[in-house]
């Protein structure tokens, strides 16, 4: 891994607290062969344990990590990071919190 970093912007919303959603940007080390779910796990473990996202099978089967990745619905576990990225909850479903929907 080189020392390159990318900016990961996540839409955040907690129904217990927030009236509207807001955005938060994290700076994350970048390397070859990194999935969106890897990046979210990095944020959770190292930068912000309060970020909500869901992963289960980590291989593209269960579909539960589906979210809007740069405006398109896609699986976080099988989508490779190319550079700066914008993440938001899937639009068709009710938001539980942050990137987790009632999917």
């Amino acid at each position: 891994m080189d020392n390159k970093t990318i900016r990961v912007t996540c839409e955040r919303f907690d129904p217990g607290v927030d009236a509207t959603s807001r955005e938060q940007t994290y700076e994350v080390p970048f390397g070859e062969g990194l999935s969106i779910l890897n990046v979210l796990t990095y944020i959770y473990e190292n930068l912000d344990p309060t970020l909500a996202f869901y992963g289960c099978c980590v291989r593209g089967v269960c579909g539960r990590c589906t979210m809007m990745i740069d405006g398109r619905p896609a699986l976080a576990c099988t989508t490779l990071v190319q550079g700066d990225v914008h993440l938001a909850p899937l639009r068709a479903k009710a938001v539980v919190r942050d990137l987790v929907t009632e999917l």
Partner: protein
Amino acid sequence: MNARMMRPERQVMETDVLVVGSEGAGVMAAVAAAGAGASVLVVSKGKLGRSGATQTAGADFMVDARSVVEVLGFKEGDLQDSPDEMMLDIVQEGKYLSNQKLVEVYVRDAPLRVKQLIDWGMRVAEIEKAHGCRYPRGVIVPGPEIARTLRSVAGGLGLARVEDVMVTDLLLRDGCVVGAVGLNQRTGGAVEFRAGAVVLATGGWQTAYPWTTATDDLSGDGQAAAYRAGAELVDMEMLQFLPGIVINPPAWRRSIFIYAFPAGVLLNSLGEAFLRHWDPLRADMPMGHWPKETVSIAMKLEVLEGRGSPSGGVYYSLKHLPDNLIADIMSRRWVGEWKSDYVDFKAMMRYLQGGNALEVTGDAAHYSTGGIRVDEGFSTTLPGLFAAGECTGGMFGAERVASACTEMIVGGYVAGTSAAEFATRAGRSEASAGQVGELVDAIYAPLEREAGPRPVEVRKQLQKVAGDKVGVVRTSPALTQAIEEMVGMRSTLDELATVGKSLHANREWVDALQLRNLVPVVEVSARSACMRTESRGGHYRHDYPQTDNDHWLVNIVVQRKGDEPELQQVPVTTTKLRPPCGVVPYIESSRR
């Protein structure tokens, strides 16, 4: 601020049979219990048909090859085979630690249950004779197709279910299981389940380890809840590890890719093809031709002796292969498509062919061989509590080669039937006074505690101990240290605090509750592994490298006594197959 004020109102749900777990074993149990006339409620930690290991199964249901023809109607079977022949193979592969009464149920019911799934619309890809298997017993169905079938059956029967609810503990009255409590991960509300009987179908505990092939939700929930309630666990020292699982680059973690491309070579950090030291006769053979146990042990020793990769694995390289040969292998094995389990490996192949090595681990936790002790009715040692699938122990003894998919559907169906019978007879009763409140307090404790160790950090510590000291290569000093560290972590569990206090989809909160299960399970596993001073199947003791049939044809059974686990050695349950005697080197006993 009194955080306690935030608790949503507790929900109460009632049913005859509560099934905890929503995949192969759970849905089968629910179908059987409903068929026997009981009301049924399925609780899923995630979503039904989208959780646990079932959906990721790469392979097969195992049915004896005669029944493949006679019951399932596939001409590719073999009439020479029989349930008895299959039983012999399972017991031999389990190094004679299997409870033979359970294996009898497996071989008896396998054709019936697989037939049932096929009748429900499950599509069989092919019938296969697995490598090293005497008969074509493999009824190949990819995991996603099994999961699709389960969703369709559950939908068709209108099975009542609650989803995204993690069951944390069982409720008792007079020593009898009468329900459970859990956390609704969406709302942050506690749920109390009142039931006539409970079936645990919660899967394995692989996430205790740094590397695994399993899904993120397998955290020993059933084993730990059963243990806390007083049920017995068995063979907890037996765990199956797989070598050669990708750990870097991270996007392909958990992949068993290199089994589909066994021509690669494993190198340590000195650049040595270290496997050749283990068996000169196989020195030039690619990794795929080596026994998995040998490869696991060899890889782990490289790491333990300081010749591992930065992330604690070794390197896997294709650099010795010419590009056109790689293309040739690829076109034959993968039909030009680098895809498996929906994961696209094109970018990984570019990385490899660009001259890079992958980092792979020798000991990804793959299957929990031991677990909750059950009898041939899949009753646990607690009245009212039943269990099936990977969360149970005893079926495969020391090592599993036979299909875990068959185990889950066979056990699930019997457990569901037994539970319905029990619930009808016993009826429902309320838990002893104060219990629900106490167990619900335990759920909220990490959320309401203002400060304390962070679940993420404690999980990393736990995984390091499990991987280094209760992994593929075991020794008395390492296991003793692991036990001490787990005893220390018990008190850490009472201090865990989340940073975020949200009630909704709070990962740290769920991590804390999972740790509450993983710590006792790892402790029990380490204690059992420490007691077994021999090597057998999935349990390799570097300090006792012999399989000792004269002293160790016993199962180690663990039960909680007060706050401490009590270990007991009990003779193996045999029916028709007589175990061998004598002492043989592990490397020989592990050969098939």
